[in-house]
């Protein structure tokens, strides 16, 4: 059995460990607005698990929605659990304390369901580690009827295969509605065997039970077929999507974390989906269609959440908040209503244009932070390849506006290794960046520029899902081009670890054989792989070797259109045909417009919604 040696459960000892760990407030629970229920008075318990530390997990919006949706039901208790940081883990293992929930300090293995939120591939080993710390077998096949059902959802569930050995059932798409259907089905079957429960779950739309499917391979290592067991599950699992975001359950209260988190403010989700159509962007595809929340409803929710938390900032959350139709009116109304209470408004995602800068200038009383823009690529040709509809003029106009409005610091995001990139495109980054301080010099204002560079990671369900990633040697070569090209007193360059990007690429587009590598890497001690101080590529390399798996097969190989992709049986609602057309347009460096500006591009997602909520119906409202 695959577990590390965990002594018998001794709960209630957390307190004794706290004096010896950093930031002990991560582990106490008891925050303002925490929901703590009497476990004897509920019929069903869910542990909402986030495979990273408290500070990061408490900033996750999906977790907060599910916490609310589940706890709204009097018969269900949902409690939280996060990955203990390494110092706390060492103390817990030494003292034989299992992983427990924050609310009632109940060991995880006493819950009916443990549900993980998978928003980042480099948290996968933490899932295994948390299961192990909880005394739950990490392999799905080794769990018994007395173990919890282990679920996972979030963006990474759109290619569930690498985690298929460890997760009993995946939730594909938006969780608010399906999570209740899952709980009701399991409640119905309490006391019954696991297999029956999993078969029942597989019948719920949007739920994928990997053990009910088998994968066969071709001689060249590609997938021959993914087939469901007999009498079993649907051949394809389609994502869940809310038809009416205004009617969707929404947190009426938010837990106020004990410690300051990266997003220490009220997060108000104003819109789901994005129609910009950047060809590398997974979120932009899998969260389609665009659905905007009603402005009056948002005003009410902002009011409620500010009052119950005491936060002094509301962040308008979405993939592209400036694209919310009534953004200016919403912002103005929020300011009018809350500025007397010293509440600030912020827009986390900024469009590269001067109007958008002017809007942010209006709402930020204090220029406390820099402005961030994402041109993504250094030349117009490459921006056309990725369909990032931003020009150099847009960027420089936005920079000029930022300087005029008093900002003295900007951050620019770029990617290297995008499809079809040449050295000329890489050199285009410093060329473009150097024009930025020039704008400031002309205005006789100081400006510091932070340039953040990441390596392109091809993701499932995007037009670039067939594309190869650069090798790490190539990434390093391009980074050194940038290092020598980006000189200047006020220019700072930072970049992501190439091996981290490679690992992300393997985990993002891997198949079930990658699961063995994840298991070995975790057994070798890998965890918190996204944290530079703990990222250990040599251990991963050993794990790939030990399992005879070549990372390049997953990361650096151009896949053909007729290859069966590991995630082909998971449907985002966007057709493969649309993705192929976009991929070919990329080869021709042809951008397309935003479908909200006019013509429907027939991505296919509309078929997921009933007619009255279709994109067509919404477009008709607007135009």
């Amino acid at each position, binding site marked *: 059995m695959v577990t590390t040696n965990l002594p018998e459960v001794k709960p209630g000892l957390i307190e004794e460990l*706290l004096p010896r760990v950093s930031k002990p*407030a991560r582990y106490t629970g*008891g925050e303002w607005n925490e929901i703590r229920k009497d476990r004897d008075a509920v019929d069903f318990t869910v542990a909402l698990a986030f495979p990273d530390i408290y500070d990061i997990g408490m900033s996750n919006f999906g977790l907060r929605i599910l916490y609310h949706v589940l706890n709204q039901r009097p018969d269900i208790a949902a409690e939280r659990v996060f990955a203990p940081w390494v110092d706390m883990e060492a103390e817990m293992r030494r003292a034989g304390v299992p992983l427990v929930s924050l609310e009632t300090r109940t060991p995880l293995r006493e819950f009916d369901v443990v549900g993980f939120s998978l928003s980042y591939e480099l948290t996968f080993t933490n899932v295994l580690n948390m299961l192990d710390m909880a005394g739950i077998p990490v392999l799905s096949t080794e769990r018994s009827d007395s173990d919890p059902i282990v679920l996972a959802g979030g963006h990474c569930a759109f290619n569930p295969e690498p985690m298929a050995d460890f997760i009993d059932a995946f939730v594909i798409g938006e969780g608010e509605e399906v999570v209740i259907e899952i709980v009701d089905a399991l409640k119905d079957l309490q006391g019954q065997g696991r297999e029956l429960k999993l078969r029942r779950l597989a019948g719920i739309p949007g739920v994928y039970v990997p053990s009910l499917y088998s994968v066969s391979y071709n001689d060249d290592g590609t997938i021959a077929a993914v087939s469901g067991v007999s009498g079993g599950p649907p051949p394809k699992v389609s994502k869940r999507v809310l038809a009416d975001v205004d009617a969707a359950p929404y947190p009426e209260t938010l837990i*106020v974390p004990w410690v300051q988190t990266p997003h220490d403010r009220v997060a108000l989700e104003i819109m789901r989906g994005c129609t910009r159509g950047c060809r590398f962007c997974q979120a932009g595809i899998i969260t389609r269609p665009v659905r905007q929340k009603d402005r009056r409803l948002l005003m009410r929710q902002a009011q409620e959440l500010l*009052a119950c938390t005491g936060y002094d900032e509301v962040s308008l959350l979405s993939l592209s908040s400036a694209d919310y139709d009534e953004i200016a009116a919403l912002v103005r109304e929020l300011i009018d209503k809350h500025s007397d209470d010293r509440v600030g408004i912020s827009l986390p995602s900024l469009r590269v244009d001067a109007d958008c800068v002017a809007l942010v200038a209006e709402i930020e009383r204090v220029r406390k932070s820099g402005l961030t823009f994402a041109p993504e690529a250094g030349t117009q040709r490459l921006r056309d390849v990725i369909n990032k509809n931003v020009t150099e003029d847009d960027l420089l106009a936005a920079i000029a506006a930022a300087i005029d409005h008093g900002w003295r610091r900007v951050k620019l995001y770029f990617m290297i290794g995008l499809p079809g990139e040449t050295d000329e495109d890489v050199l285009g980054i410093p060329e473009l960046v150097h024009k930025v301080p020039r704008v400031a010099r002309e205005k006789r204002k100081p400006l510091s520029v932070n340039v953040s560079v990441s390596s392109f990671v091809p993701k499932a369900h995007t037009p670039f899902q067939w594309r190869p990633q650069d090798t790490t040697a190539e990434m390093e070569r391009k980074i050194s081009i940038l290092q020598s090209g980006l000189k200047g007193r006020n220019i700072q360059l930072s970049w992501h670890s190439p091996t981290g990007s490679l690992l992300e690429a393997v985990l993002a587009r891997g198949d079930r054989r990658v699961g063995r590598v994840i298991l070995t890497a975790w057994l070798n001690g890998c965890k918190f792989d996204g944290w530079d101080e703990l990222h250990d590529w040599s251990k991963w390399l050993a794990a790939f070797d030990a399992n005879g798996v070549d990372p390049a097969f997953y990361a650096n190989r151009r896949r053909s259109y007729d290859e069966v992709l590991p995630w082909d049986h998971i449907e985002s609602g966007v057709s493969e045909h649309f993705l192929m057309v976009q991929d070919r347009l990329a080869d021709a460096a042809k951008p397309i417009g935003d479908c909200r500006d006019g013509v429907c591009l027939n991505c296919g997602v509309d078929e997921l919604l009933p007619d009255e909520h279709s994109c067509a119906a919404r477009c008709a409202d607007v135009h």
Partner: protein
Amino acid sequence: MNTHAQRVALTYTKTGAARWLSHLDLIRTLEMAIRRAKAPIAYSQGFNPRPRLSFGPPLPLGATSSAELAALKLDSPADPRQLLDCLNAQLPAGIQITDARVVPESDPTLPAIRGSSYLVRVLCRAADPAHALQKALGDFLAHNEVIAERIDKRVMKRVDIRAGVESLEIVEVNENIAVLRMRISHAGRQITRPSEVVQAISRSMAIEMLSIHREFFY
């Protein structure tokens, strides 16, 4: 100058889960409770206005207290009793205000504090804990100087912890658990920590610290 301004001194507890809050997180917790309570707190001037809130000496992380001090400035007068009630309704478990009183503007922000009185619970492994403790405390107090090593901004420092200990006594011994009372001065730059005193005593007898509680300032 706002003629309606009023200053209120608060005494509050820090117990339960809240005792694991760092000083910065505690400040944040109180600021947010004040906002939830809609207390008419005054804000500083300038580009980034902050609530006018000041705090007494921070507690060691993990220590409990029944006597923490804070002072806040209000824009408009409020009845201290009502302020106490509505703040307590918005404070998480473990932080409760036990006293709120209006103080004159002319007073210093916080009353002069000479030192803290701590109750420290320890586990003694000696055969006769009361006797062994008596002797160990006597030895500690008999020294003019007791040097402890302390990591300060990643640098190991040697500091004298004896001078800051104004009194040290046994309150009770119950089997192998003892409660000590120590009065520690806040004068000087290097303030002695209760844990350092226990650490020093543990050099001459087998004791282990269990908990620290600040009972009052003096």
